[in-house]
Every structure is written in C-alpha cells, then in structure tokens.
C-alpha cells in the first residue's frame, strides 16, 4: 500500500507543478504578501467591532453594558469585542490587540479630546504586542490562498484524469480507492502546509506557535483536498465544476465577516469549516488566548468525516461506477 501511495504522490506532485493553475496560485501568494506589506495600511478599520462595557457613568449608544468586569474580559477574550471599564476617572480599554492609532481614534470618538479622562490600555492576548490590521489579515489569506490549494488542485487533477481518461487505466490497475484518496490528500496537505508556512513567515515573521500552526495547516489542507475530491466526482468537465467550486469557496469566505467583526458569529456560520480554521490560525499566529486544541479537534473531526465521504464517493462514482467486481 505504501508503495502505491508514494508512487501516486510523486505522480500527483509532478502533475501539479506542471499545471499552470498551480503557478497562478503561487504568484497570487507572492502578490498577497506584497499587498499586505505595501498596499494595506496598518490600521484601516476600527469600526464594525462590537463594544461592551461595565461601570461606565454614561450610557453610550452602540455600547452594550455587561454585568461585571469578568464578563467584559470574557467577551473580549472569547468574541474579540472591545471592552470599556470605568474605575473612577480612569477608562480601561480592554481589547484583543488593536493598534495604538486605532485605540486613540476610538477613545477620541467616544470620549472627546484626551485629558478629559485617564485612559489605560489592556491587551487580552497571550502575545502582548499590538497587531497591525494588515498583519491581522494573515489568517484569512492563509486560509483562502494556501489551504484551499488542495480543494482547487485536487479538483483540477481529477477532472484532467477524467478528460484524458487516465482514470480508466487506473480502474484496471490494482491501485484502489484508498491509495487514490490518501495520495492526493497527503500531497496537497503537504503543499498547503508549505504555502501556509511561507505566508505566515513572510507576513507575520517567526514568532508564532509553529507546531500548532503546522498541525492546523496540514489538517485544514487535507480537509479542503478531501472536500475537493468529494465534490469533483460529480462533474465531468471544468466549466460545470467551476461554478460549484466558486460557490463552495464563497460560502467558506462568509466566515471572513465574523473574523472582521467577531460579534457577528451566528450559530450556522460556525459549521462552515473555514470558521474554525481562520480563528485557529489567529490563535496560533497571534496568541489570541483561545485553546488551539479545540480548533484542531474540530478540523480533524471534519476531515475524518470528509475522508469517509470522499472514499465512498470516489469508489462509487469514479473507480467502481458500473462495475460489479469486489
């Protein structure tokens, strides 16, 4: 079995690097890194984040009062909101890592010119540095550039195997379903991880939770590869597949809204795989305080379900269609 898988992995790797779309994705990666550093400003957004407070002597529209300081801290830690707490004439701004400029703008908008209040800033993150907004986008870019590589490439390779009818030759070989699915999942899992690491290092630097990041990037890339295999078996040509592929990616991209405005996290959006992945990357890259194990467990469980689905569908629709042999 290992021999078959390795042989298929080498074959798939060569097919991938000789495919133009792979190089389009690679160039896109470079463009994203350049954009993050040179086009996107470090603080472009302070709006859209939900504000919570405790003990403010004035009620402000748009700020949700909570029952205790602990509740405010919990909300900031868990939902990424911005908290305001008044202790005498001191306002404590509790946040998940806003830039200084954003903090100043926010306080000026709420309380007028500096001097009226003493202002203290408290960052509720494991890493205490301020995260510029452009760098904070790294989890989104990693998810939708590096991790979805497997989804796109697995689909494209399978369609090319259908169009060139090489899959027919595979069907009369002892290759089998498991070797077919596992080899693709491993190849794109590894490449997705390498791309994710490249993006992380080039955008964020070297100071992050490497083991957690590698594990999450690998499991996420495998998950999207399996999703690509499971979906593509239903299509015979690129034009029909493309619409569905874009739709699936767009659905996954809706979770970006939650990432930009953490207060927006309805129940249904948490079931979209990219939700856990993006926030998981935020944790491992910026130490947002949440437990990475939870993201890994959820993503691995989703990958396991998709593995079973991909194997069943590849076997039924691709390799054993019309066949009665065992």
């Amino acid at each position: 079995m290992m021999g078959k898988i390795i042989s298929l992995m080498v074959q798939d790797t060569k097919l991938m690097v000789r495919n133009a779309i792979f190089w389009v994705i690679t160039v896109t990666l470079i463009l994203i890194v350049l954009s993050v550093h040179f086009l996107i400003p470090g603080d472009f957004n302070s709006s859209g984040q939900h504000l919570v407070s405790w003990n403010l002597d004035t009620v402000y529209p748009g700020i949700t009062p909570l029952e205790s300081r602990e509740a405010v801290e919990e909300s900031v830690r868990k939902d990424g909101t911005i908290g305001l707490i008044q202790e005498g004439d001191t306002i404590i701004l509790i946040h998940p890592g806003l830039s200084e400029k954003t903090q100043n703008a926010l306080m000026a908008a709420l309380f007028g010119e500096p001097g009226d209040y003493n202002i203290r800033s408290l960052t509720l993150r494991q890493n205490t540095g301020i995260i510029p907004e452009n760098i904070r986008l790294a989890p989104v870019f990693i998810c939708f550039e590096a991790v979805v590589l497997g989804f796109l490439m697995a689909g494209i390779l399978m369609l090319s195997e259908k169009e060139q009818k090489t899959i027919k030759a595979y069907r009369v070989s002892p290759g089998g379903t498991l070797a077919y699915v596992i080899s693709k999942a491993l190849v794109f899992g590894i490449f997705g991880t390498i791309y994710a690491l490249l993006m992380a290092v080039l955008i964020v630097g070297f100071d992050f939770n490497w083991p957690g990041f590698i594990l999450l990037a690998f499991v996420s890339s495998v998950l999207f590869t399996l999703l690509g295999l499971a979906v593509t078996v239903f299509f015979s040509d690129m034009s029909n597949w493309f619409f569905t592929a874009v739709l699936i990616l767009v659905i996954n991209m809706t979770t970006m809204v939650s990432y930009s405005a953490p207060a927006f996290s309805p129940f249904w959006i948490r079931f979209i795989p990219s939700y856990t992945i993006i926030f998981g990357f935020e944790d491992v890259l910026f130490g947002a305080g949440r437990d990475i194990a939870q993201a890994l467990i959820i993503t691995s469980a989703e990958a396991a379900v998709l593995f079973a689905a991909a194997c069943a569908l590849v076997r039924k629709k691709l390799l054993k269609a019309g066949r009665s042999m065992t």
Partner: protein
Amino acid sequence: MIDVWHLYHDYTGTGKFAVLDVTFSIPKGTIFGCLGPSGAGKSTIQNIMTGLLKLQRGEVSYEGKSVNELGVKFFNRIGVSFEQPNVYRRLTGYENLKYFAGLFSVPTLDPMEVLDWVGLRDDAHKKASDYSKGMLQRLNLARSLINRPDILFLDEPTSGLDPSTASRIRNLIMEQKEKGATIFLTTHNMDLADRLCDMVAFLDEGSIAAMDTPGNLKLKYGKKEVMITYEKDGSLVTESFSMDDKAGIASLIDRVTPVKIHSQEATLEDIFIRVTGRGLS
C-alpha cells in the same frame, strides 16, 4: 482458460442489447480476435471482461472463477491497452510507465525496456503531449505490458501506426503469446487478425455471426478455385479451374508458361461481408 458464457449487456435497460448471447472460450496462451465494425459490441465485451462494466447476465470466468468474485489482485495479472490513448499528457513517456508500475504488487519491468520494445526509447523523456497519435498508441501498449501480464486485452493496438511500426507491434504481440500470455484482441483490422489470431469471432450488432480459426473460415467461405494467368499472342489470358480439376490444371501448365497462379482464398474482410451482409466501416 477464459470462458465467456451467454453474455448480454443492455446499457439503457430497454431491452436493446449492445451484447446479445455471446459465448466463447479462450485457451491459455492463444490469441482470440473479436472483429467487427464500430458499435458492434467489441469494447463492451472487453469492458465486461476487465471488470470495467457490470456483468448483467451470463458469465465471464477466469480458470473457472467468476469475474464477480475476483478481487483487486486480478488487476496484477492483466494488461489493458485502450483504443483511445489515455496517458498523462503532462508526464513523459517514461514517467507514465514508472508511476503506473508503482501501483502493482507484483514485479514489474524496467519502463525503459518496455519503451524500447515499442520503439519509444529515444522519446522516453519527451512529454506525452508532444507525442504523435501513433506514439501515444504505442505508449498505451507499453503501459499494458509493464506488469508482465498473463492476460492481455488489446483494443486496436496498431491503429494509426505506419506499416513498419505496425509490423513491429505485431511481432511484439506474437512474442507475448510465445511467452504464454492469453490475448483478447479487439480490432476491425482484418489483416492484423488474420496474421495474429488463433481464433476469430465476427461480431455484428452485439451477436457473434461467425467464429472459427482464420484458416477454417477461409476454407469454409473461400472459393475452391485456382486462377492461372499466362501470355498468349502478346496479351495476358486468365483461366479458372476448380481445385478438384487436377487434370485440367496440369494440362494447362503443360501447354503454357504461367505468369501468375492464385488460389481464390477469401480474405477475412470478404467473409465478414458475406456473413453479415455489410462492411466494416
């Protein structure tokens, strides 16, 4: 021994059979030719025999074991060369064979050796997308041989080849037979079948119209005549004799100097047309 017994196949489920009550046996180490025009059901039979299509009715067995009971290990024993070249165009000829060989759990051949057999050694490291149709056809055939199969399914193996390369491939197929391989050859090339096959079946609209050795078919359907051409007064004259008329033939040869003597043996194509009432195209 491969046995195909009362085989039927209906793609549409409407009773319009693509294969209709086909029965034949292929002894080990022989070449069986399945001949007929496009749409006659040749590929359907091959696909059922290789497990690509479901066995709906009838039976296909290998050494007495039903194709339905054969597991994935069966594919270690067979080689299939499809009519339409189906190789990875972005890989070289060598890479196509190398990675395909990696799928088998039996010893495989050196890809370069097999490429040499089909005359592709010099083009081994060219991408398959740069191959001509004939080269792709040969690469397909090479792939089917990589696992030293003892059962070979060859669908139009000389299609698109020039006469010299076709002759090389014919010899290669004969070598496989001499090594003990059992070969199921699907073609509408009657000359190829005549040269290679121990037994041929004419397939017409899903049914076998005639089946025998090429020699027996020719005897059965050919004219038992001899045509002798000789020169007389500066022009060529041809006379026909029944093969039984030994005295007449001897008398003419005594009197004249023959230029040509031909038996009126029918070709397989003539016989196919006679049996089915239609041509091969």
